[in-house]
C-alpha cells in the first residue's frame, strides 16, 4: 500500500527539506528478517513534534501538515497526502516493532505502543524519562549514546531492559541519529526483543556445556549405530577425537567378544527401550580394555519416533578393580580367620591327648608310689596332677570356644528356654546343693538356638553366680522380656559383683579377675557365652557394682 509513497522517491538521495511546511513524509520500512530490522525514514516537522509537552506527545512523530506542498515534483492531492499521513501514523504507532526516539541527553521523546507494551509502562511512565533508567547496564546505554553522538549507526547492540514488573528483557538495539543541520535531534531507535531466543540459547549452551564438561562419555548415534556426536568425556575415556569417531560405527569400541551386544542394544533402542547401567567391556584407542557402565536411551523426534540413541558410558574399571580387591581381601581374611579357628580347635584337641597322658600317668605314679618318694615327692606329684588337670580344662574350653566359631550356625527350630534352664540346673545340682543357692525364674520364651549352646550359656552364667557368691547363700533370678525384635534375658545374682572397670574384660579369652585358688575356673566361660550370642546376632553385657551383685544380660533375635 506504500508503493505510491515509495514511488515518489524516484531513486534520489533522501534530503532534509528546508521548508518544513512543504514536507511530506515518506517511510521506507524494510523488515530484513525476524532478527534484523532496519528503518529508514524521512519525516516531517520533527522540531515541532519533539518539543510538544509530554502530556500531548502520544500522537507520535507525524503531526498534521498545514501545507502538503509537492516534495518531489509530483504534488499529490491534499486529501491523498492526509490520508497517507494518517495511514503512516497509524502504522508507525501500531506496528508490532518497538520504536522510539531518544534525545541527545537520553530523554525519551517518543515511543510507539509496541515499545511500551514490551516493557509494560504507560506512556506517562516512560516518555520524558531518561532512557538510562530503563537499562540494567549503565555502561551499555552510555556507550550506545556516545557512539550515536559520534555519528555511528548501530545495529543489533545487545542490551538488557528493566520492565515495569521487574523482569528483564534482552534486546537488540538498532539506532541512528536524525540530525538537522548537523544538530542531534533524536535517535531513530528500533528495539528487538530476543529474551526468548536468548533463554533458549542459554539453555542450549548450558546443556551443551554440561555434555561437554561431563567426565562420562556422552555419545549419540543413529539407529544404524553410526556415531553422530562425541563429547570430551568420550575422548578422554576412549582416546578418540570426534573427527576419528563421528560417522563411524559404534562397534569400533566393542572388543570382539562383546561385539554381539551392539545389535542387541540397537534393536532394544529401536523398540523404544532403555538400557540401564549395563556393565560391559569396551576398548580404547590404545587397545586397553575398560569396564564401563552403559546407559543408552532412545532419542525421539518431535513426532515421538525413535531416531537414534544417546549413550552415557562411565569408566568403572577402577571401581570394579577395587571391588574385586576388596572381595579378595575379605575372602583372604575369612580364610585366615577360619584357618586360625581350625588351628585353635585342632591344637587344643591334639594337645589334650599328651596332656591326658601326663595327668593320668602322674596319678598312676601317685597311686603306685605314693608315700615311697618322701613328703616332697608326694607334693610334687600332686602339683603335676593338678597342673595337668587344670591345663586340660583350659584346653577343653578353648576347644569349645573354637568350635562355636567354626561350626555352621543356623539353628532352625525353636526350643523352650524353660526346659533348657531345667537341664542346666540339673547339671549344676551339686554346687546348688552345696551352697544352698536359690534359683528363681520368670516364664521363659521359645527361641531359635541350639539346645546345647543355650544350656552352656545358662550353665556358665548361673555357675558363675554360684561360684562368685558373697557371704550369703546365692540368690539367682533368671528372666526374659521382649524388646522390639529380640528377647532380652537376664541372670541376676547377689554375689561379690564386678568392678565396672572390668565389665568388658570379663568376656575376654582366659580373662579372670581372681586367682584360680580363690575361685576355680578357666576364664573361658563368658568368652564362650559371648561367642555363641554374637553368632546368633545378639549381644551380651553385664551391669554390676562391687559388692552389689551382678546382672548379666543377653539378647537373642525373637
Amino acid at each position, binding site marked *: 500500500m506504500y508503493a505510491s509513497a515509495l514511488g515518489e522517491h524516484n531513486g534520489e538521495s533522501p534530503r532534509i527539506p528546508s521548508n518544513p511546511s512543504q514536507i511530506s513524509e515518506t517511510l521506507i520500512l524494510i523488515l530484513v528478517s525476524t532478527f534484523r530490522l532496519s528503518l529508514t525514514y524521512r519525516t516531517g516537522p520533527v522540531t515541532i513534534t519533539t518539543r510538544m509537552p509530554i502530556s500531548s506527545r502520544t500522537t507520535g512523530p507525524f503531526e498534521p501538515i498545514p501545507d502538503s506542498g509537492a516534495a518531489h515534483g509530483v504534488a499529490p492531492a491534499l486529501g491523498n497526502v492526509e490520508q497517507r499521513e494518517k495511514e503512516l501514523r497509524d502504522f508507525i504507532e501500531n506496528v508490532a516493532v518497538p520504536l522510539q526516539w531518544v534525545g541527545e541527553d537520553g530523554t525519551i521523546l517518543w515511543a510507539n505502543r509496541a515499545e511500551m507494551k514490551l516493557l509494560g509502562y504507560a506512556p506517562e511512565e516512560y516518555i520524558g524519562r531518561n532512557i538510562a533508567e530503563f537499562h540494567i547496564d549503565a555502561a551499555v546505554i552510555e556507550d550506545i549514546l556516545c557512539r550515536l553522538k559520534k555519528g555511528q549507526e548501530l545495529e543489533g547492540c545487545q542490551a538488557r531492559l528493566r520492565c515495569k514488573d521487574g523482569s528483564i528483557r534482552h534486546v537488540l538495539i538498532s539506532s541512528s541519529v536524525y540530525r538537522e543541520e548537523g544538530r542531534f535531534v533524536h535517535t531513530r531507535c528500533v528495539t528487538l526483543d530476543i529474551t526468548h531466543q536468548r533463554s533458549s540459547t542459554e539453555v542450549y549452551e548450558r546443556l551443551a556445556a554440561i555434555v561437554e564438561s561431563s567426565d562420562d562419555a556422552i555419545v549419540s548415534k543413529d539407529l544404524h549405530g553410526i556415531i553422530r556426536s562425541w563429547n570430551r568425556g568420550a575422548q578422554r575415556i576412549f582416546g578418540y577425537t570426534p573427527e576419528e569417531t563421528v560417522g563411524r560405527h559404534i562397534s569400533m569400541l566393542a572388543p570382539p567378544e562383546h561385539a554381539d551386544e551392539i545389535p542387541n542394544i540397537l534393536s532394544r533402542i529401536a523398540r523404544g527401550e532403555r538400557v540401564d547401567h549395563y556393565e560391559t567391556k569396551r576398548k580404547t584407542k590404545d587397545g586397553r580394555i575398560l569396564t564401563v557402565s552403559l546407559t543408552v536411551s532412545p532419542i525421539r523426534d518431535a513426532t515421538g519416533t525413535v531416531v537414534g540413541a544417546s549413550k552415557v558410558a562411565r569408566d568403572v574399571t577402577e571401581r570394579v578393580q577395587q571391588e574385586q580387591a576388596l572381595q579378595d581381601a575379605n575372602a583372604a581374611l575369612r580364610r585366615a580367620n577360619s584357618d586360625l579357628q581350625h588351628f585353635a580347635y585342632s591344637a587344643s*584337641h591334639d594337645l*589334650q591327648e599328651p596332656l*591326658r*597322658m601326663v*595327668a*593320668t600317668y602322674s*596319678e*598312676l605314679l601317685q*597311686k603306685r608310689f605314693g608315700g615311697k618318694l618322701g613328703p616332697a615327692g608326694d607334693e610334687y606329684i600332686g602339683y603335676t596332677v593338678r597342673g595337668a*588337670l587344670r591345663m586340660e580344662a583350659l584346653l577343653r574350653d578353648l576347644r569349645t570356644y573354637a568350635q562355636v566359631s567354626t561350626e555352621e550356625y543356623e539353628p532352625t527350630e525353636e526350643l523352650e528356654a524353660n526346659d533348657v534352664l531345667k537341664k542346666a540346673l540339673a547339671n549344676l545340682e551339686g554346687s546348688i546343693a552345696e551352697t544352698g543357692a536359690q534359683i528363681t525364674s520368670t516364664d521363659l520364651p521359645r527361641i531359635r538356638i541350639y539346645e546345647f549352646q543355650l544350656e552352656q550359656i545358662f550353665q556358665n552364667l548361673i555357675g558363675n553366680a554360684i561360684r562368685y557368691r558373697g557371704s550369703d547363700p546365692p540368690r539367682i533370678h533368671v528372666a526374659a522380656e521382649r524388646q522390639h525384635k529380640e528377647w532380652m534375658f537376664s541372670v541376676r545374682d547377689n554375689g561379690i559383683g564386678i568392678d565396672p572397670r572390668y565389665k568388658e574384660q570379663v568376656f575376654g579369652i582366659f580373662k579372670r579377675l581372681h586367682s584360680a585358688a580363690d575361685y576355680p575356673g578357666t576364664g573361658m566361660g563368658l568368652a564362650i557365652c559371648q561367642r555363641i550370642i554374637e553368632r546368633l546376632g545378639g549381644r551380651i553385657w553385664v551391669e554390676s557394682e562391687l559388692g552389689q551383685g551382678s546382672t548379666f544380660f543377653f539378647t537373642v533375635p525373637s
Partner: protein
Amino acid sequence: MIREALAEHNVEGELLVISDGDEAIRFLQNLDAQAIVCPELVILDLNLPKRSGREVLESIRKNWKCQDATVVILSSSETPEDKADALKLGAHHYVRKPSRLAEFLDLGAFFKQILAASRNPGS
C-alpha cells in the same frame, strides 16, 4: 593305661597292642591268610597314626572272622557326630577317654563285663 585298667580288674586274656592304623589293617588282612582268631574285644581310638580309626573300624566290620568281635571306640572326641558315625559303622560302644585315673581304671570293669558277655552269650 588300658593294661593298667584291665589289671586293676583282673581281666584275663592276651592283650595285643597295635600302634597305628596301617598296622591294624595289615593285621586284619593277615587274619584271612593265617590261622589267627579275631580278638573278642577291640578297643579302638579314632585318631590313629597313618590310617584313621574309622578305616580300621570299616575293615573290622568287613572281615568275616571278626563278625563276633565287640568294638569299643575310645576317643577324646566329644562331638555327637563322631559318636553317631562310629556307631553307624558298626561300633558297639563309644566311650570318651577319661582324664582322671580313677575313671580310666573303672573302664577295666566295663571291658571285663563285655568280655564276660561275649564269652557266655547265653547268660
